[in-house]
Each structure stands twice: as structure tokens, then as C-alpha cells.
């Protein structure tokens, strides 16, 4: 990138890689919008107990008499149900914000664990080569040849339902993507001089792997990671919708949508519709950010 492209106002400051990254990311207004929306969603989820008019998990706060109210009705407790209520009289807005919490925790958590496992195995495969490499990559191929939903179904059929099992299923389904990505980058990087230098210094293998090789494999890993978070959230919602995911007492977005399914046929659309919109906005905003990250971090597209 030449200096001429940098906007004048930051050109006089010292250009750090991070600052360049930020300014390149901000070139796309759509991606910036996606980021802002995602930050708002994350903040809503984090501060859920202080924002929502109701604690949707506290059965004492729910009044069955408020059940299936249309959006905008004033309930027994005195506040307005902006997005209506579900069959148990739960305020949909509160339910959605708490549901976002679960969806984000499950999605981000499983993506993070899968990243740790997948990236380590990918690094190992690239660095060790030979038999280790081919065993790990065979596993990756096997995993990737099955559709994610099928692998997840299989795992949940054995382990049973529950939030931990969903996370395990998502991790087992996703690790292969990280492993393949990291291996691909690491294979190129390990032939560079700095790795040779590190080896000449007789540094321990784990130090070479994690302090020298890994940081240089980060850009594609970040891109894949962002996309995988969105995928994990969508997959968790799908599994919960099928009744295989999180328990009914603490519904995620997918389960909220499933709960509203039967009422939708009688025209009570809001129970399914609004959680769906929340899910949609979350996934699309993450994907927009991921798309732009890919463009910015891809060295082939560098100007």
C-alpha cells in the first residue's frame, strides 16, 4: 500500500499496522454498519438484566394471563409489551435479549474452543509433516465430507440434549475448518527465514509453534473464526428449533422461534417473527464484518 492512499488526516501520524488495518476496514460503510450493529447486539446481550423490562426466566414474574398478547399491549405488570408475549406471558423483547445471550455464548464459545483445538492440530500437522500430517488431514477430510447438520445430529443423538452437548457438537463439527486453514498458511510460513532462525537458536518446539508460527497464521484464522461464529449461531438455532438444543427453561433464539411455530398458523406471527429477525440481524452483521475482514486481511487483494 502506498502512502498516497492513506487519508490525509492520519497520514501525519505514525502508521502502525493496527491503525492501517482499522482505516482499511472502515473503507466499507456497510461493514462498519455491520460492526456497529453487532456491538449493539453484544452490549444488549451483556447488559440484558439491566435493560429488559422483565426477567424471562423468573417464572414468578410471568403472568399466564398476559399470554399471546399482541405487540404494543399493556400487560398486568404495568409495562408495555413492545413485541408482544408468548404463550406463557413472557415479554418477547426480554425473551429475545436473553435469548441473544445464550445464542452468542454458545456460538462464540464453541467457535473459540474449536479454534483452539483446530488451530493447534493444524499447526502441528504443518510443522511435523509426514505421518502426523496425513493422519490429521485424513480426519479433517472425513469431517468435512459430512454436512455439518448431520454430524451435529449424530453427536446429539448419542450424547442427548443440553447446552454442553450442543457446544461439544458444534466444536466437533467446526474444528476441521480451522485446522485446514491454519495448516494451509503454516505450510507456507514454516519455510520462511524467521522459522529457520528460531530453529537455529534451538528454541523449544512449542515456543516456535505458538510464538513464531501462530502469530503469522492469524489473519486467515480471524476471518474463518468470524464466519464460523455466525455459522455456529445459525446451527445452534437450527438444532434448538429441532428440539435438540438448549433446554426449554432458558430458551435461545432458535427455541423461541420453535415455540411460536404452532401459534403462527393461527396468525399470531410475533412469537416466531421477532426472534427470527433478531437472529437474522445477528448473523448478517457478523457476516458483513467477516466479509470485509477477508478483503482487508487477504494479501492477494492488497493494493
Amino acid at each position, binding site marked *: 500500500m502506498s502512502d498516497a492512499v492513506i487519508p490525509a488526516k492520519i497520514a501525519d501520524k505514525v502508521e502502525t499496522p493496527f491503525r492501517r488495518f482499522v482505516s482499511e476496514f472502515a473503507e466499507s460503510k456497510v461493514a462498519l454498519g455491520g460492526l456497529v450493529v453487532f456491538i449493539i447486539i453484544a452490549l444488549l446481550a451483556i447488559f440484558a438484566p439491566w435493560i429488559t423490562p422483565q426477567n424471562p426466566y423468573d417464572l414468578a414474574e410471568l403472568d399466564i394471563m398476559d399470554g399471546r398478547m399482541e405487540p404494543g399491549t399493556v400487560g398486568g405488570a404495568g409495562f408495555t409489551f413492545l413485541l408482544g408475549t408468548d404463550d406463557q406471558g413472557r415479554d418477547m423483547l426480554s425473551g429475545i435479549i436473553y435469548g441473544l445471550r445464550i445464542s452468542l455464548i454458545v456460538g462464540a464459545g464453541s467457535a473459540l474452543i474449536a479454534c483452539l483445538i483446530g488451530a493447534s492440530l493444524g499447526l502441528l500437522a504443518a510443522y511435523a509433516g509426514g505421518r502426523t500430517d496425513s493422519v490429521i488431514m485424513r480426519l479433517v477430510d472425513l469431517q468435512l465430507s459430512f454436512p455439518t447438520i448431520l454430524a451435529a445430529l*449424530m453427536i446429539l443423538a448419542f450424547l442427548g440434549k443440553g447446552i454442553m452437548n450442543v457446544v461439544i457438537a458444534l466444536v466437533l463439527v467446526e474444528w476441521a475448518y480451522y485446522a485446514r486453514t491454519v495448516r494451509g498458511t503454516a505450510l507456507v510460513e514454516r519455510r520462511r527465514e524467521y522459522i529457520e532462525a528460531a530453529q537455529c537458536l534451538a528454541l523449544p518446539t512449542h515456543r516456535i509453534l505458538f510464538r513464531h508460527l501462530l502469530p503469522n497464521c492469524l489473519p486467515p484464522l480471524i476471518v474463518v473464526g468470524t464466519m464460523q461464529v455466525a455459522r455456529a449461531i*445459525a446451527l445452534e438455532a437450527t438444532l434448538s*428449533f*429441532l428440539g435438540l438444543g438448549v433446554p426449554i427453561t432458558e430458551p435461545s433464539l432458535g427455541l423461541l422461534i420453535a415455540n411460536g411455530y404452532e401459534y403462527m*398458523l393461527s396468525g399470531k406471527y410475533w412469537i416466531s*417473527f421477532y426472534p427470527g429477525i433478531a437472529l437474522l440481524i445477528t448473523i448478517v452483521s457478523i457476516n458483513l464484518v467477516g466479509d470485509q475482514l477477508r478483503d482487508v486481511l487477504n494479501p492477494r487483494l492488497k493494493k
Partner: protein
Amino acid sequence: MTVYLVRRILQALLVVLAMSLIVFIGVYAIGDPVEILISPDADQIERERAVQALGLDLPLWQQYAVFLTKALQGDLGRSFVYNEPALKLILQRMPATLELAFGATIIALIIGLPLGLYAGLRPEGRFSRVIMAGSILGFSLPTFWVGLMLIMVFAVYLGWLPSTGRGDTGTLLGLQWSFLTWDGIRHMTMPAINLALFKISLVIRLTRAGVRETMLMDYVKFARAKGLSPARVTFVHVFKNILIPVVTVVGLELGSTIAFSVVTESVFAWPGMGKLIIDSINVLDRPVIVAYLMMIVLMFIAINLIVDLTYSMLDPRVRLESKGT
């Protein structure tokens, strides 16, 4: 070629064996096999008899041998709920799933090819941008939610299409098919479109990329220079050439379409294999779960094998590479 063939088939068999071991461990070792394979309603005497009949008192490796021999004979246990052989249940539901998957594939081609072609020919056009944005949505929208929205709009508010079930079926080759009756087709429309969404996006992107690449080829330039009409260049010279890779990928995707029909079938209460497996998981009808998993694993390995063999026939590089290692 023969060496490659034998090696590839052996490899596929090995994977089948490995998957059967995984399913076996999943059912027999992680869970309690007595609980999994014997109906919870059975009394003590029935229970003991079943334990002996299933060989659950044998050591684990012998149990696996019994499981394998029975599986090879097509015996994957009986469903608790329907009290019928699990395999038979799944085979009965298979036509419904297959026709849904094929319907979705055809819809994806009918909608995806023209849109992709348009977007490829006019990459900077406004409508092309709309198409590409739409295809991103198609990739990122969760299938089940789109299905619900389809039901809400077309079944609840407009009342145009029925929302659940298969409708009337006609008989062909001794099997029941929905596409043979008008009512059946009406029932199939929404589930098939829902299942097709992801694939439409895929076809659009593949076609667009293919068109943009092909348009730069010398033979296209030559055809234009010859003074052929733009329509002839587009449909004969460009379209025919991009059709091959697109159709290949769509064929490859058939397996995952069948797997993803689990979601669509649940939304539209379509009585196929996918609906059966979800119902079975929910009522813990484990023999059916085992049978479904084994069937689908077999199907996948078969599809992958066929694809690999076809490729190796079409592309000699694959053969040579495997000979080298």
C-alpha cells in the same frame, strides 16, 4: 486404473467400517445399551431375555461382531414406536425425501442459472447487485426461519399453498410420489423452494463466476468476431461450457441436500426420513436412529466414491497422482 479403483473402494469400505465402529461405540459404549435397545416398557423377564437375545452379556468386541453381522444382513433392530424393522421404516420414508431433494435441485437450476447468467453478463448492473446481495442472504439465512416465513406469508396470510404434509400421492413403481398429483405438487412447492434456497445462491455464484471467466476466452471472442448474434454466443458458446461444472457441483450437493432436508421436513411436517429421525431422537427410538445414521453414512460414502471415480476417469491427473504416492 484398476489399481486406483480397488484402492479407492477398499478405502471406502474402511471408512464404512470406521463409521460403523463410531456408531457402535456411540450406542453401546457411551449410552447404556440395555436402555437404548430395549423398550422401556419391558418387564424384568423380557429385559433379561432381550439382553441374551442381543448378546449384551458378551464381551464388547464380540458384541461388535454380532452388530456387524446383523447389519450386513440388513437387520438394524426394531423400532420401539412402530414395532417394525428400523431399516424398513427408513426405506419407506425415503421416496418422500428423495423427491423433495430432486425437486429442490431442479428449482435451484431453473432459478439460479438465468439469474447467475444475467449477473455474469452485466456484473456492474443494478439488478446484478441485487441478485448478488440476495445470494448472500440465501447463504446466511437459517433455512428453518425462511421456511416459517414462507408458511406465514403463503399459507397463513395469502392462503395460496398448504403448509404441512404431502397431500395426495400417485403410485409409480409401487411407491407413493407426490409429484404425480396436482395436490401433491401444491404441497411440495414450499418445502422444495425452502430446501432450494441455499442451492439457488450456490448456483448463482457458480454461474456468475463461470460466465465472467468464459467471456474472456478466445473462442468467445472469435464467435463474436465471426458476427454471431449475442444470443447465440451467450447460449451456445458460453452457457454450454459453464453448464458442466455447475451441474457437477449441484450433483455433488445432492447428499447434503438430503441431509439438510431434516430441517425442511420438520418445518413443513413432510413425512420423509428427516422428519422420522427427528421424531425418533425426540422419543428416543434408538434403533431407528442407528439405522438412519448407518444408511446416511453409507449413502455419503457411496456418493463420494462415485464422484471420485468419475473424476479419475475424466481427469487423468488424479490417477497419476495416486500412483505416485
